[in-house]
């Protein structure tokens, strides 16, 4: 009989490779993803009372300290059977699980990766219907390569509702330092508000150190009266592509920035990064999870094809892309679930439509450059609405020629300024001290912006010229 060689994996290999490529923040967000997938499974048996707020009544509480990390939820818990056979396996064994649910769990690695990223010791307790148990990971177990089983014991302190509580301690030094940092906690707070915005908006509550997190706002301006054209309205697209539902809405979330505002912003940006552009850009959502937040890069079409690169003048443009599928592997998600898989064919197709829409609004912005105030009235007639509400309000969609994928779009006929330019832009440089002198002379204030000083000089000179006539 042939002799055998051992190919058993070492735990330290798993721990170091699994955790190397993920940031602590993303590892924590993975744990929240698991909560949401839990809600969806629980929702199969306990149908939500309000279809618009399917996550209503569910919560997750995260408590952070330099010595221990705890996340507890009431999202249905893990059955003992799943715990014994798959939940703690490194990698998903049951690919059929969740096949009819729009979850984002793909590889069955999130919880383990998060725990291994943070510390050497963990206690995972869960209550699911009749089951109530705890699984413990110890530093000793982590160092034993031959032992690949974990003890599952009946819970001593049963959770009050069906749910899961994960406690990680014996934290690594770098993790402990991050969990002690106000800056890290603020960033985590913002990321949860941004990346879980849709889920929070649909009723899920997340508490970070007892503070409830409010969702980010992705509303866009639109008018429910579509009868007059041309008018400012968002561009919209919807399709069913190979089992994935896609919706795109892009438009303005605020009025156009004036030349003065742009100049000020660009000037300030050169000194210190500002946050005014934070709300511009594309947000990509997969199965209710935001995976790309307010992106302004080539990834979402900025600076690609005929679309200009992002610039402060486009500060008013924002868009949302919503992918939904019961087959999470078909979604354009990277393995970290917080980024796009740009090689996905479905995203390539959708990106072209995103650029078509984006181009409408960059062109509009460019057409009205220097005449922004003429568009103000149109903006006043509009109101902010959720992208899904805008999609529902569109009265007439156009189909795409020859498309196999039930593709439809709404392309707004945006107002164009008359070709005859009645206004010209004047721009010039003068020394700062001269501008300050004029600022004081005209406004009794040395801090008025250079463009306002320039405008005043022009107006005064014009008055004088007219007076001479």
């Amino acid at each position, binding site marked *: 009989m042939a002799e055998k060689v051992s190919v058993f994996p070492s735990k330290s290999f798993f721990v170091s490779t699994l955790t190397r490529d993920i940031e602590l923040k993303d590892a924590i967000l993975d744990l929240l993803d698991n909560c949401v997938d839990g809600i969806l499974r629980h929702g199969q048996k306990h149908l939500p009372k309000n279809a618009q707020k399917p996550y209503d009544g569910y919560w997750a509480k995260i408590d952070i300290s330099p010595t221990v990390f705890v996340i507890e939820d009431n999202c249905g818990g893990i059955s003992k059977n799943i715990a014994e056979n798959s939940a703690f396996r490194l990698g998903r064994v049951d690919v059929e699980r969740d096949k009819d649910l729009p979850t984002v769990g793909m590889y069955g690695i999130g919880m383990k990766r998060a725990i291994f990223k943070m510390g050497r010791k963990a206690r995972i307790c869960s209550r699911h219907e009749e089951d109530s148990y705890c699984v413990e990971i110890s530093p000793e177990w982590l160092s034993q390569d031959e032992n690949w089983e974990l003890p599952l014991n009946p819970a001593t302190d049963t959770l009050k509702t069906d749910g899961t509580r994960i406690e990680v301690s014996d934290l690594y030094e770098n993790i402990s330092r991050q969990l002690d940092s106000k800056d890290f906690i603020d960033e985590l707070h913002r990321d949860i508000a941004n990346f879980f915005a849709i889920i929070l908006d649909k009723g899920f509550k997340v508490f970070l150190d007892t503070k409830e997190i409010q969702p980010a706002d992705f509303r866009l301006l639109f008018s429910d009266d579509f009868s007059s054209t041309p008018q400012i309205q968002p561009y919209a697209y919807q399709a069913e592509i190979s089992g994935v539902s896609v919706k795109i809405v892009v438009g303005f979330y605020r009025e156009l920035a004036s030349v003065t505002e742009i100049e000020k912003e660009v000037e300030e940006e050169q000194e210190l990064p500002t946050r005014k552009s934070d709300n511009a850009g594309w947000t990509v959502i997969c199965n209710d999870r935001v995976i790309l937040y307010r992106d302004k890069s080539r990834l979402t079409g900025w600076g690609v094809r005929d679309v200009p690169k992002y610039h402060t003048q486009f500060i008013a443009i924002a868009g949302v892309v919503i992918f939904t599928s019961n087959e999470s592997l078909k979604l354009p998600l990277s393995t970290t679930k917080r980024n796009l898989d740009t090689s996905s064919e479905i995203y390539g197709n959708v990106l072209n439509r995103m650029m078509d829409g984006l181009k409408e609004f960059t062109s509009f912005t460019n057409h009205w450059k220097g005449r922004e105030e003429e568009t103000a009235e149109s903006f006043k007639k509009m109101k902010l609405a959720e992208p899904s509400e805008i999609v529902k309000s569109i009265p007439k969609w*156009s189909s795409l020629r020859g498309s196999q994928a039930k593709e439809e779009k709404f392309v707004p006929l945006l107002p164009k300024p008359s070709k005859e330019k009645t206004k010209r832009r004047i721009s010039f440089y003068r020394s700062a001290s001269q501008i300050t002198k004029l600022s004081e002379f005209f406004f009794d204030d040395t801090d008025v912006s250079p463009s306002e000083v320039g405008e005043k000089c022009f107006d005064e000179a014009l008055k004088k010229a007219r007076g001479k006539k």
Partner: protein
Amino acid sequence: MSGRNVAYQLRPNKHVERLLFVELLEKICQNQTSSYAYISMGGPQLDDHRLFYQTLGITKLFSFEEDAIVYKRQLFNQRPSCIKCLPIPIDEFVSEFDSFLENEAISDKKLIVWLDYASTKRREQLIEYQILLDKLQEQDVVKITLNANPKTLGEAQSKETQDSLFKRRLEKIRGEIGEYLSPDITSDDMTGLRLVPVLCHAVEVAAEKGTNARSRLKPLLLSLFVYQDGEHQMLTTTVRLTNNSDIDQYKANLNWEYLPSSWQDVTKINIPALSAKERLVIESQLPVVDYSALHDNLPFRLHTDENISLEMLKEYARHYKRYPSYFQVVL
């Protein structure tokens, strides 16, 4: 600098290229011309539209034109009546593609689109071509003409060395269409001859970018010509969106003599200028197998170099049926 306003009668090589396009379209359409619509920029005289109506029988013909003067001349010259002239730039056709087809009730037609550019705005042109390809469907055909005159990238200034001029041209083309260029091009590629493969590569990249969202469809290359009338060296290429699995069969069935083997397989059209008497002498002996014998027996030479003269004769023989004849007419 462009060849936009030079009439066909002054551009014999363009004339031959255009007839080659008609021959290709005859093979593509295969007597089903009623299922096709033709969209292009017709110029003041709408020559192409008229030709495609007369030879192919296409009746859904559209011309886009942004120049108000040219548009008014189109309306004056419009013949046949089925040509629809639109005072709209071609980029608006590309951006409003679906609504245009819907409004004109041609969404069910196969499209033949000719982006007949002559200006040197190559970046905008390649982007339009790319966006158009993204919107086209299987069996649609798109042809693009690009200005391939290296002088449009820079002309020699007084006392400027060739090396400096070519570097300047390289910098300019990289600034213009860098994302479509091969990273290994050098200033040596900035000659008339070597700029052609550089631009072929750029069009290939644009075609790929325009179709890569749809793995099932491929831009099947059907023609790749370069010609020059006077200063105006132009590159033209035609692709048909074809299902991956049908490509080999389609190529075999097409039986098209000028089918390129790759994006670098360019056919140059360079017909010699011959007198009527010279043409008649040559044509009276065509077709032949042995061009050397024909050449030896001719009482004249087309070039001082014997080999070049023989090549010019072959080029004439290749295209003599498409050779334009010009006559002076007193009106």
